[in-house]
């Protein structure tokens, strides 16, 4: 469905994207993960024909983004970070306008708009003017405009940026619903987002792909995160953890309310049994022991670290 070959974009002296190659199969959901300025948006803008590559190319269903821009644009739907919406239009009229722009046959416009409205759960606001909608709804209208013409490839740039927690959950569900019907490429700098919605992850750093694969393929290469909360003296916990083999990093916070001390550990192997034994052996009250949400974060930082070490 999508093949990127040695894509490079240079702005003056700055190489925003450099030698990026990857393939996406039909129906897959790919996540571009990277810090701000990693080149995710520039990459998506090249795939959406908003920017011409300095070198390299990308093929969408066999159409070249550089040479067959019109054909590519027929096959894609794009949601930039700021949804491109005409505030003075109602949601329904706007989506009908976009459908016509994207060459939906006039007889099908109404049905396609209805379908996009249902999929994005916009039923209650179809007649409402876009400028009166909340940011969360505007993002949903932004997704609706990207899918109203039923494109095979949908590109979403930071779809959850600026949303509150409730809206994030709703947006996550919406993106999950799009899977299967469309091939998805979405970008985010929020690690959990990518891990929860995507089949495959492309980690970007300084314009290059630092690593790519499924989360479980990337995770073993990196540290595991363990979180432990105990009742007792901080010094005792530090001493107990000092005796646990395999820990690569230990961070013990100051005692909190009620004498609860929390520590975050990083290791290559699962050390939870040893940690449990050491904590209990030291006479501390073990309140909680589990995997921290550091897993993918660690992947990310480790991969970036190893790339920086190589460059």
């Amino acid at each position: 469905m999508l093949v990127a070959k040695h894509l490079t974009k240079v702005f003056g002296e700055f190489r925003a994207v450099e030698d990026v190659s990857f393939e996406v199969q039909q129906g897959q959901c790919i996540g571009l993960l990277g810090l701000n300025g990693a080149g995710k948006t520039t990459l998506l803008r090249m795939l959406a024909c908003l920017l011409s590559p300095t070198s390299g190319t990308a093929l969408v269903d066999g159409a070249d983004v550089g040479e067959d821009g019109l054909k590519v644009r027929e096959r894609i739907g794009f949601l930039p970070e700021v949804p491109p919406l005409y505030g003075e239009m109602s949601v329904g009229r706007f989506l009908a306008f976009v459908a016509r722009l994207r060459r939906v046959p006039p007889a099908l416009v109404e049905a396609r708009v209805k379908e996009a409205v249902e999929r994005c759960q916009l039923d209650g606001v179809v007649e409402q003017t876009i400028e009166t909608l909340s940011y969360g709804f505007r993002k949903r209208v932004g997704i609706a405009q990207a899918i109203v013409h039923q494109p095979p490839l949908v590109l979403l740039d930071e779809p959850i940026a600026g949303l509150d927690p409730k809206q994030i959950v709703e947006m996550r569900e919406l993106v999950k619903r799009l899977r299967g019907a469309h091939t998805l490429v979405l970008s985010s700098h929020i690690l959990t987002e990518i891990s929860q919605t995507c089949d495959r992850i492309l980690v970007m750093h300084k314009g290059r792909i630092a690593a790519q694969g499924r989360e479980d393929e990337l995770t073993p290469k990196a540290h595991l995160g363990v979180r432990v909360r105990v009742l007792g003296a901080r010094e005792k916990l530090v001493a107990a953890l000092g005796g646990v083999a395999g820990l690569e990093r230990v961070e013990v916070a100051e005692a909190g309310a009620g004498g609860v001390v929390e520590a975050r550990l990083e290791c290559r192997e699962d050390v939870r049994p040893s940690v449990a034994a050491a904590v209990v052996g030291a006479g501390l009250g073990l309140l909680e022991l589990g995997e921290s949400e550091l897993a993918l974060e660690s992947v990310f930082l480790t991969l970036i670290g190893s790339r920086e070490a190589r460059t």
Partner: protein
Amino acid sequence: MTNVWLIARRELGATLRSPLGFVVAALVLALDGLLFNLWAMGGGEKLSAEVLYEFFYALSGTTMVAAVFLSMRLLAEEQRDGTINLLLTSPLKDHQIVLGKFLGAYLFLALLTLVTLYMPLLVMVHGKVSWGHVFAGYLGLLLLGAAALAIGTFGSSVARSQVVAAFVAGGILVALLLMWLLGRVADRPLADVFSYLALHNTHYKAFMGGKIHLKDVVYYLSVSAFFLLAATRMLESRRWR
């Protein structure tokens, strides 16, 4: 053409709903009325043809100013709000986007211009008006408006700020308006070139007097086409930046 009309219709709708559209329409029509009463009708007894001549002269100024104000937002606002991404990622050619935006604003400007038709009709009450004179005058106004609007569209394509866009368009308009002065002081053949380029003095006066010269029509259409093409090139260049 369907795509151009689609964009033009949305643009016209947006202008009709926006405060800017109403403010420009109200100010221009009020100014046109005042100028008709004080400038064209004032200054003692005049022949109907003289009144029309002065009327079309006065309206040329307000039409150009209206064109700059209506066009300054066309592409600048789309670039500022990011809605240009919607158009640029749709299967449209760049010239269709520019033409659609231009046409939408032009329909509004044409409507605004034609609303003033009641003033020449008032002249008929006490005088004798040649319909040919009225037709030629309005054709001139519509052509001058198209050229000014195309210049404004170009100004709007170079900047994200509407103020900057208006200044760019205003600067080009003033430069083209003052070309006749350069034509006076320069030596031939430069003087001929400058005189030919003069937006108002050389090409509009015949329309004011009720005459239609093909060379003037061609000039205004050429200026419009040139600046619309330039705006298209500016839009295309966004993909290469």
